[in-house]
């Protein structure tokens, strides 16, 4: 995508980042000992904590990822919203209160409250670290996507920017700051989503999206002469070459020295060539957007309706619509989405984004990303079940969410916090359906990354709304990254060095080690954020959920609900959960594509590991607890 820098956005952005940093330093000055660094000393009001919970949870994955995936894959994006929220049920009903009674500051402490086992400490701190890192990747990818239109910076610059700011926040303050920052940001995110949804409904649906100053590109269709399956001539264009990839034929045409690619379609025996978007990577490093250099600005935003049907009649536009009417009208209409494919043309690498008309009825059903219809393969059905399982079981096992259970005084408050969070998050997720679909049909999508759907939709409604939403989204990423880095630095400094290595650090030293750990994890996250550019952030978060569900949840559940659970069982289950889920992820089609080996050649077709790794971890904790029963158990004392 080609972006201009926006001065308004820049100003709001700076104000926001300044505010976030200011708050951090203000609260940072108040704290003194290690307990306030990790868990704000158990002093935070439940309502503040509840919205902060929501702020924590509504990370880049929710706001950027879900909206983006709904915009390009319809209902399949909403599956993430359903699963992410359902996960809170596990957290609230099974984990929240017992956990609050068990622990001190970190997940490891809670797991270890009964056993005081060094093996558990080690396994749990490693799992906290790995889950945090996997959760950090999408945040960083989202950050990079965000700054591209905001500051007209390349992706990597955004990743470094976020990394640097967060390292500064965490190293200077700690949890107290992030709770208030998360509260502020969680509240704002919900308010802004309501405003954005109101705009979408007020504008209704139209065949010609885009305002007067920023009209939507009219994609052209040409009628070619075809002999056999070869395009021989096209009026006003010169035919250059033709390529077929995965049963789709693309034709390279030239006009006034500019080369463009068209997608050959056949409808009822009538062939036509549809305009596509292309990015050509030349061997000499030059990049061409639709056959021309970047400064010509010939690259377009996409996503529109090709047909709007209201009460059985085709219309140009609907005008303002109600929420149900909005959803049902899209269901009756026809959506045009752009899919990506890659071809090699001589020495050039060509990314082609071609249009596909899809019935609204299909767009409003699962199946565009996770194929589950009657013709779907067993693998893709299992993948769907695996994803839903990971989302359901992952929430309760995320280390940076669990930390918030300790920031309020009583189990009663923890419960109220959690319910407020569920209500806020649930409301927000229902709005993502509208925002995502709105982005999908209002001609605002960037074909290179689905993650920017929501902010770019806001941009179509006005520069101010865009700037505020981008700034909040950026603060969202900042807050989440900060929370994750606190969790992982806690795992290293508190669990690993202090408890596992028995260094008995002084309070001062503990904070210092925590800060050094924070910097190291931050730098690592920056590097990974650059490596995963262009992948939908919700999809990436799905992995973090799967690892959390496999590594942590069986251990927690058995500890809470099965008296015979032994420390060996717990540590073995954590290790098996991590190893199994990581192994499946690292050999998945998406990773194979990242390694440059081609997704179709991967060792298996599972994108999400939970369906295999979670049962394995459950089995492990059971079998190992039977084989190695607990001995000399320190009875749980309550404080």
């Amino acid at each position, binding site marked *: 995508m080609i972006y201009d820098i926006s001065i308004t956005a820049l100003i709001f952005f700076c104000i926001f980042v300044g505010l976030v940093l200011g708050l951090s330093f203000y609260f940072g000055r108040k704290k003194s000992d290690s307990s306030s660094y990790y868990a704000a000393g158990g002093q935070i009001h439940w309502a503040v904590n509840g919205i902060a919970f929501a702020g924590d949870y509504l990370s880049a994955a929710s706001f950027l990822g879900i909206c983006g995936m709904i915009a390009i894959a319809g209902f399949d994006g909403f599956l993430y919203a*359903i699963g992410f929220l359902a996960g809170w049920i596990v957290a609230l*009903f099974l984990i929240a209160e017992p956990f609050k009674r068990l622990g001190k500051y970190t997940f490891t402490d809670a797991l270890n409250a009964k056993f005081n086992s060094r093996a558990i400490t080690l396994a749990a701190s490693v799992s906290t670290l790995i889950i945090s890192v996997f959760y950090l990747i999408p945040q960083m990818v989202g950050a990079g996507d965000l700054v591209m239109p905001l500051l007209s910076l390349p992706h990597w610059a955004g990743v470094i920017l976020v990394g640097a700011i967060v390292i500064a926040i965490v190293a200077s303050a700690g949890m107290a700051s992030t709770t208030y920052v998360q509260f502020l940001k969680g509240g704002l995110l919900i308010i802004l989503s309501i405003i954005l949804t109101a705009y979408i409904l007020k504008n209704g649906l139209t065949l010609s999206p885009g305002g007067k100053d920023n009209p939507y590109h009219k994609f052209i269709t040409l009628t070619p002469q075809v002999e056999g399956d070869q395009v021989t001539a096209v009026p006003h264009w010169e035919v250059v070459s033709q390529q077929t990839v995965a049963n789709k034929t693309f034709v390279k045409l030239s006009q006034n020295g500019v080369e463009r690619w068209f997608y050959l379609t056949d409808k009822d025996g009538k062939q036509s060539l549809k305009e596509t978007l292309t990015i050509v990577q030349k061997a000499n490093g030059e990049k061409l957007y639709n056959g021309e250099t970047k400064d010509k600005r010939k690259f377009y935003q996409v996503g529109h309706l090709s047909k709007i049907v209201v009460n059985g009649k085709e219309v140009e536009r609907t005008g303002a619509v109600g929420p149900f009417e909005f959803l049902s009208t899209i269901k009756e209409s026809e959506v045009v989405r752009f899919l990506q494919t890659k071809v090699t043309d001589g020495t050039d690498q060509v990314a082609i984004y071609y249009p596909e008309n899809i019935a609204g009825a299909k767009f409003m059903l699962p199946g565009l990303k996770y194929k589950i219809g009657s013709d779907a393969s067993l693998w893709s059905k299992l993948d769907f079940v695996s994803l839903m399982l990971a989302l359901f079981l992952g929430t309760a096992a995320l280390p940076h969410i669990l930390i918030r259970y300790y920031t309020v005084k009583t189990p*009663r408050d923890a419960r109220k916090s959690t319910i407020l969070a569920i209500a806020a998050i649930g409301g927000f997720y229902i709005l993502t359906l509208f925002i995502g679909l709105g982005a999908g049909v209002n001609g605002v999508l960037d074909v290179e990354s689905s993650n920017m759907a929501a902010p770019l939709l806001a941009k179509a409604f006005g520069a101010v709304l865009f700037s505020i939403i981008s700034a909040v989204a950026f603060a969202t990423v900042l807050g989440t990254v900060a929370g994750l880095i606190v969790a992982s630095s806690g795992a290293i400094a508190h669990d690993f060095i202090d408890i596992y290595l028995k260094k008995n650090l002084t309070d001062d030293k503990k904070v210092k080690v925590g800060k050094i750990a924070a910097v190291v994890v931050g730098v690592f996250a920056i590097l990974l954020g650059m490596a995963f550019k262009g992948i939908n952030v919700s999809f990436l978060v799905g992995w973090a959920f799967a690892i959390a569900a496999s590594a942590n949840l069986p251990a927690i559940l058995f500890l809470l609900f099965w008296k015979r659970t032994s420390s060996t069982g717990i540590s073995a289950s954590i290790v098996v959960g991590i190893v199994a889920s990581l192994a499946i992820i690292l050999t998945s089609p998406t990773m194979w594509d990242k390694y440059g080996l081609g997704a179709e050649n991967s060792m298996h077709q599972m994108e999400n590991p939970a369906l295999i790794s979670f049962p394995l971890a459950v089995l492990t904790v059971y079998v190992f607890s039977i084989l190695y029963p607990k001995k000399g158990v320190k009875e749980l004392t309550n404080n």
Partner: protein
Amino acid sequence: MHVNSTTEEREIVTRQKSKLGVRLFFIYLICYAGFVALGVFNYELLSTTVFSGLNLAVVYGIGLIVFAVIMGIIYNYYCTKYEDDAEKADALTKEEAR
């Protein structure tokens, strides 16, 4: 299990809450699994229009979100009730002891 050793009543409350939580969890689990099972085994049913022009997929999906919030509120109501009842009973016992 969750041991809470302060008073006899308190332990009962803990057990009551835990039982309630597990029950509500299974109710939700069945609803959630129902959605996933529909997707896998009877995908076509999800496209049926059920309400105000919306298909079953959208209604079920939004329904799961709203249902989670409702269950949360129910859970909180009963937990608070158990705790309050226990506290009242506690206070009564103390008064009687005096």
